[in-house]
């Protein structure tokens, strides 16, 4: 805006400012921080708005309609809160919520405990350390669906290698029906999920452990601290920020897990392992194609996710404040 005033106020250098005026818009766009920033951000923002923010808002909008597949949001009949009210009385949905919470809670606790333990083990002085770390990461590298298929074979009701080994050792007499019994199926998918998630947690926590100064442990040893005390009062407090971030990711991705369940049990037996994500797929894409209802199930996951993010966010903030760190 101020540029427009220049030719009027400054009369003598008018000619020179005139000659400068035409390129000024373009050159300003190239030099001005905000415009330059906007140009640089354009590709990323375009992707994220078109295929992330817009669908996210659209999903919430769809959850208030009775849309079928192929119907756009404007032509779909408005349903108000009907989808949610209907879901509240839907036993399948309530079981799925329970399953999701149970699956997330148990798997996350186990992943954290085993991951932290493994990280502490790996932090020892070990021979072939690089090789060991590479092997530990294998479950994380192998695509989830493909390892889920391997687990499907391992959990086979007739030819399970686990059942066979236990039978050979004389521990059981008949094969375990891993995926056919509701609780067996729940524990089996949790096991597969923990197997898949432990490497990520262990390796990231290991990176955190390596930054802890050994002199702290030396001082604690001189003060007569036990191993547990050293862990509790040195390792754990120093690791808290990284634990908070890692566990947030872990909980989020466990809560919204889809592929493992889809491949291993497809929600069965009788909905015992149905999670909210798989249920929304079944309702919206497969039978009935009720986009509105599926979107309502997806939208119902958002409060849980937000709660999880907020808890870790505020946990992290308090931690930073206690350690007297700035906000970067």
């Amino acid at each position, binding site marked *: 805006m101020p540029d427009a005033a220049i030719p009027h106020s400054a009369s003598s250098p008018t000619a020179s400012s005139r000659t400068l005026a035409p390129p000024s818009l373009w050159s300003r766009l190239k030099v001005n*921080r905000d415009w*330059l*920033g906007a140009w*640089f*951000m354009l*590709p*990323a923002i375009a*992707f*994220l708005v078109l*295929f*992330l923010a*817009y*669908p*996210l808002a*659209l*999903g919430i909008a769809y959850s208030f309609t009775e849309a079928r*597949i*192929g119907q*756009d*949001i404007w032509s779909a009949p408005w349903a108000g809160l009907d989808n949610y009210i209907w879901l509240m009385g839907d036993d399948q949905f309530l079981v799925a919520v329970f399953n999701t919470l149970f699956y997330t809670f148990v798997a996350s606790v186990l992943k954290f405990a*085993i991951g932290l333990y*493994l990280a502490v*083990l790996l932090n*020892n002085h070990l021979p072939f350390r*690089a090789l060991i770390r590479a092997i530990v*990461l*294998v*479950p994380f*590298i*192998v*695509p*989830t*669906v*493909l*390892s889920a*298929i*391997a687990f499907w074979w391992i959990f086979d009701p007739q*030819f399970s*290698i686990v059942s066979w080994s236990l039978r050979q050792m004389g521990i059981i007499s008949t094969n375990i029906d891993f995926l056919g019994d509701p609780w067996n199926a729940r524990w089996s998918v949790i096991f597969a999920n923990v197997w898949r998630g*432990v*490497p990520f947690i262990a*390796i990231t926590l290991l*990176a*955190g452990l*390596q930054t802890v100064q050994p002199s702290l442990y030396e001082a604690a*040893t001189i003060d007569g601290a036990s191993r547990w005390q050293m862990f509790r009062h040195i390792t754990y407090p120093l690791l808290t920020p990284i634990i908070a971030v890692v566990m947030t990711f872990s909980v*989020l991705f466990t809560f*919204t897990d*889809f*592929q493992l369940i889809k*491949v291993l049990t497809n929600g069965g037996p009788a909905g015992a392992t149905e999670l909210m*994500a798989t249920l929304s*797929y079944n309702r919206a*894409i497969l039978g009935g194609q009720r986009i509105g209802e*599926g*979107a309502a199930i*997806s*939208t119902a*996951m*958002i409060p849980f996710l937000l709660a999880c993010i907020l808890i870790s966010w505020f946990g992290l903030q308090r931690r930073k404040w206690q350690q007297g760190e700035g906000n970067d």
Partner: protein
Amino acid sequence: MTETANGGAAKPARKPLVDESEGMRYLERLPRKLVTVYLPLGIIMLVLIFPFYWMAITAVKPKSHLLDLDTHSPFYTLSPTIEHIRDLLFKTDYPLWLWNTMLVAVVATILALLASIFAAYAIVRIRYRGAQWVGGLIFLAYLVPPSILFIPLSTVIHEYGLFDTPFALILTYPTILIPFSTWLLMGYFKTIPFELEECALIDGASRWQILWKIVLPLAVPGLISAGIFCLTLCWNEFIYALTFINSTEHKTVPVAIVTALTDGDQYRWGSLMAGALVGSLPLVILYSFFVEHYVSAMTGAVKE
């Protein structure tokens, strides 16, 4: 932090390692370490590696040994066969699925990397008004899981006319990749000394030239980390590929194995495991060359 950038070291995100002096290690005697460290570590590693081993060994077992656990030890085979892998490659569309997966993964990764390079550079170095906020929002985008997006996204894909084409995946995968790689690259760009850019600015370089000729060559390790991680994520993706692709010839490996290979044949395990093995091998090979980059990608994004 700064000294790592000019050497082009592989892991600027990591703090310098602790000294390799003996420290308190002399306090640990071998028998004690055997029980407290090696034994549990061995058990955990055995469990972690076993499903992969079992997948590999099943893929090369002859059909007669597959379901007969009692006459031949199931844990190894003395007569490995490539029967399953041959069937897979020549009697099914597997090579096509593999090609689809690779095409989608590579193109999506390139798109995502380009977008992330610009975004990360702008947030870290151009520092326009609100850059901090945009950075935070991009991080939040990382926390939006595909499982709550796929339903509305499927209608969006229909709307744009992309349904059942590779573009449905090529254009949606970057939304998973961009938030992650932007954060990773932001961390790398921060380690590049500001003075280098100031020199270039004084010499009359534009931002564009600075980015391509100074910043990117120094951030190559970061680009490799981000690229490998993005490839892995694309290869891994399942729910979008399952929802947006309908015809068999456009499917990616994970979806195709689950939907097209699982027929009723009781000997299907051989070809299923071969499919899983061949589908994982490219990633495992890639990973074995770049472990360090991979680890720094994993830890770098979390440490920010």
